[in-house]
């Protein structure tokens, strides 16, 4: 290996700017070694240090009586009753999924699973929030195909059902798709495992797969320090091994049933470095690592390579010394590597030894406390101009058919048919069956409701309104199945934070999210920030994806969206006919314009609480929130799900039909009930706007203007886009 001097130039290539490198020199009091520089560069990277986002993330509410652990742990933890906790988080794998869609998405799923089971929870559900480029872009098809196969390939194999998600298409994601994966697990509430190391002298133990040269810090690829064959030796793409992950889940859970583990942390980004630094740092202890003991897949790996490798399916634990043999036996049973690779010390330093040399010796406190923190300039984006009156030139029927077949609204069955949604035997509401997935807790009546939501075009037009809307929609989707919304995980996908207009979007989106979370008692307990999502200077749409979790005390109370014959349809919530940023405006009128629909958080809560109470009272047969595409799309989706038609009444006087049926006003639900009079009366009594829309029956959808569409025709339109495009 040729060596280059460690200096400001190399630091720059490792992603540290001059000021940051000066800080490294001050902390070290000498020139760092290559390994030390590597450790600083990954710990102070945007991904690990949140240096651009931290000041804003503080604004999010994170507490509620039911929150057990908020942000700061591997995943968020909330009390769900029966002595149980739900553990959940969302994480992005955007860039790897562009380079190698299958493995990028697969390892994304693997990583988020580890964040959850490292806390002692058995994963019970996966979700995925996906944004792809324009279907017309030649790259998009390959990316969609690979990402979907990768998510299925990993999730199906580990045996965790994939129960929900969302998909959008927009040219802004050409060359930069977003792949956000969410995992939810269940643990006894008094058996949550944390990462803070404790007990000087205790063994530091490595388990899982061997370490190879996978995914070593992208920055180092640019360095010429490694000779000609560096590209061959250091694949930036990691290959996932879901089989090993499955063994790792079972082995960890088996060991967690004993008292052997003091602290545990998965090796995610920056692998051994971040796990050891964070465990020791959080526990306020020191740590020594002996890299000769690390299980290695390849020969002649350097300390630098081992410390920065992102090989998958690995965990780091601190064990009670008298239980080391118990742990070893468990991992041997599951045929996984197990190695004592270090000890905790009282030095307050991380000391890395390799082949008789000290390769790194860094004080931990300043590595954490003096990590860069930026108040980057923000430029508030201009408020969107109103889009004014837009006349309807096509009528309701043509617009409905076009909308139901468009990429953003067409059936996602082609995708979820590749995901095992039933493994585990607890899936009460599968993809497509309800606004949120519902998964029962094994052995209990109780169930979790799960959803992911964000409408990036709203966020692009007005990040604050869009941020609030994403939270409100997640809350609404949980409410629509009858669940009590508990908490949120998020995945904030934005462009380059060094550009003030991007930082402005980021700050605004957080402000909107915070406002909605507060108003809805819906705190953020975990999350992930993904910045620099841009290609050729063009940023993705601001996409603060929200993962919502709620609870149903009795899974049998959950309702889906499927219509049944003979029921009345009732709309709850106020309709102003807001067409700005609607899909009707984009797909039918050909404009992406106007402000997004405003979210009235007080009304949101009033309507939602009313809907949930009716569902839990058992008077609601089906419920669907009104979102993308508006009211008529929601009704059509209910009809298709139930294979039952409906006859619709005219909308209110004074509102253009297309505005009533396709406007995207927020805070609305369509309910199917046997007794609409009782529902209307109850709504009136509580000040909730309500309106009877029509009744269900037959096999046609009859619109208020008399037009009739048969469900099979509508279904073909709804279901054909993805298979035609991807299998053709």
């Amino acid at each position, binding site marked *: 290996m040729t060596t280059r001097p460690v200096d400001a130039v190399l630091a720059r290539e490792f992603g540290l700017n001059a000021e940051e490198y000066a800080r490294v020199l001050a902390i070290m009091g000498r020139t760092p070694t290559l390994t030390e520089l590597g450790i600083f560069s990954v710990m102070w990277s945007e991904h690990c240090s949140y240096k651009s986002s931290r000041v804003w993330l503080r604004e999010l509410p994170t507490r509620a009586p039911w929150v057990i652990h908020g942000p700061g742990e591997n995943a968020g933890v909330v009390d769900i009753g029966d002595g149980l906790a739900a553990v959940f988080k969302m994480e992005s794998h955007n860039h790897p999924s562009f380079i190698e869609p299958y493995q990028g998405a697969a390892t994304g799923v693997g990583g988020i699973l580890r964040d959850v089971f490292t806390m002692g929870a058995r994963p019970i559900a996966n979700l995925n929030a996906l944004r792809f480029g324009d279907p017309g872009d030649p790259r998009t098809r390959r990316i969609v195909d690979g990402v979907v196969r990768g998510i299925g*390939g990993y999730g199906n194999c580990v045996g965790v059902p994939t129960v929900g998600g969302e998909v959008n298409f927009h040219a802004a994601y050409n060359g930069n798709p977003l792949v956000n994966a969410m995992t939810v697990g269940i643990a006894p509430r008094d058996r949550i495992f944390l990462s803070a190391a404790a007990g000087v002298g205790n063994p530091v133990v490595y388990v899982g797969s061997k370490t190879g040269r996978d995914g070593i810090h992208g920055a180092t690829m640019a360095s010429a320090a490694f000779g000609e064959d560096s590209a061959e030796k250091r694949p930036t793409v990691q290959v996932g091994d879901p089989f090993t992950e499955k063994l790792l889940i079972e082995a960890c859970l088996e060991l967690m049933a004993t008292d052997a583990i003091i602290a545990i942390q998965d090796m995610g980004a920056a692998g051994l470095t971040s796990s050891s630094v964070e465990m020791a740092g959080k526990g306020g202890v020191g740590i020594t690592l002996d890299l000769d003991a690390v299980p290695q897949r390849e020969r002649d790996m350097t300390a630098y390579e081992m410390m920065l490798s992102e090989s998958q399916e690995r965990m780091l634990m601190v064990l009670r010394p008298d239980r080391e043999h118990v742990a070893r036996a468990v991992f041997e049973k599951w045929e996984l590597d197990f190695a004592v690779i270090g000890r905790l010390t009282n030095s307050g330093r991380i000391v890395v030894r390799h082949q008789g040399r000290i390769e790194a010796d860094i004080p931990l406190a300043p590595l954490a406390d003096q990590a860069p923190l930026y108040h980057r300039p923000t430029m508030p984006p201009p408020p969107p101009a109103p889009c004014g009156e837009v006349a309807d030139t096509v009528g309701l029927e043509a617009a409905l058919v076009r909308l139901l077949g468009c990429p953003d609204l067409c059936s996602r069955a082609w995708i979820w048919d590749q995901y095992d949604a039933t493994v585990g035997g*607890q899936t009460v509401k599968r993809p497509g069956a309800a606004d949120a997935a519902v998964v029962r807790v094994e052995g209990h009546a109780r169930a979790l409701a799960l959803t992911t939501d964000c409408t990036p075009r709203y966020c692009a037009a007005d990040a604050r309104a869009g941020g609030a809307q994403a939270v409100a929609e997640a809350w609404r989707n949980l409410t629509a199945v009858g669940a009590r919304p508990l908490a949120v995980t998020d995945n904030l996908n934005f462009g380059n934070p060094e550009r003030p207009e991007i930082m402005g979007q980021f700050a605004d989106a957080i402000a909107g999210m915070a406002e909605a979370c507060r108003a809805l008692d819906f705190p953020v307990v975990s999350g992930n920030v993904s910045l620099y999502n841009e290609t050729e200077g063009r940023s993705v749409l601001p996409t603060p994806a929200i993962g919502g979790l709620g609870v149903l005390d009795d899974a049998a109370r959950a309702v889906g969206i499927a219509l049944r014959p003979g029921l009345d349809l009732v709309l709850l919530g106020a309709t102003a006919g807001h067409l700005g940023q609607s899909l009707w405006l984009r797909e039918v009128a050909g404009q992406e314009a106007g402000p997004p629909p405003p979210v009235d958080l007080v009304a949101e809560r009033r309507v939602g609480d009313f809907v949930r109470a009716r569902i839990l009272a058992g008077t609601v047969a089906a419920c669907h929130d009104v979102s993308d595409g508006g009211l008529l799309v929601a009704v059509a989706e209910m009809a298709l799900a139930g294979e039952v038609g409906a006859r619709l009444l005219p909308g209110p006087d004074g509102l253009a039909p297309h505005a009533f049926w396709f406007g995207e006003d927020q805070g609305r639900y369509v309910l199917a009930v046997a007794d609409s009079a009782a529902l209307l009366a109850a709504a009136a009594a509580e000040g909730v706007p309500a309106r009877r829309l029509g009744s269900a029956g037959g096999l046609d959808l009859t619109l208020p203007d008399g037009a009739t569409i048969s469900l099979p025709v509508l279904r073909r339109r709804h279901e054909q886009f993805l298979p035609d495009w991807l299998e053709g």
Partner: protein
Amino acid sequence: MLREMRAAVVTFPGINRERDMAIALTRSFGRAPRMIWHRDTDLSGLDLIVIPGGFSYGDYLRCGAMAAHSPVMDAVRAHTARGGYVLGVCNGFQILTEAGMLPGALLRNAGLRFLSSDCHLRVERTDTAFTSHYQRGDIFRAPMAHGDGNYFADDATLDRLEGEGLVAFRYAPPTGNRNGSARDIAGILSPNLRVLGLMPHPEDLVDPLLGGEDGKPLFDSLAATLAA
């Protein structure tokens, strides 16, 4: 009183539907099955051995190939030689064919994609321990979730299976045969009718709350037979 029925679920590294199977068996049998790790080879005193679904050994090389060589499979063979019952579902079916306990093989789905959705199965015979609680010709629903469920055997084997009435279930409308299986075969029996292998998952449809009880008669059939 009913005789005590003894069922066991055998698991291999990578199996992931053992819990689903245990729940279904417990529902029909009134008691939980024994869970057996593949390194244990003592299967004495058992009436029914179930090999559940999943991705044994990651489905690497060929689905079921590595599990089929596990020591426990010799014990499963001995169990059938004693006249014991064996049920293999999905990966379990693949393991039974790889072990040579059922004929044929499961190839990649014809469309080359993992298929996860409900399918419909027609019951071809009802005079077996696995199907007595169905009516002949019944069409029932079961979730399927597999990438390699395309049943293949040479024509002579297929003719023999049909001639001897060893086809237990076939894919039926409305969903039909989506994986390309020869002669729509979804499940087959051994000549003594004591070994059943099938691709779809009746164990995931035994609870009205989860969408229906279409799979329950299979487990009720077994419970009734074994209690007799």
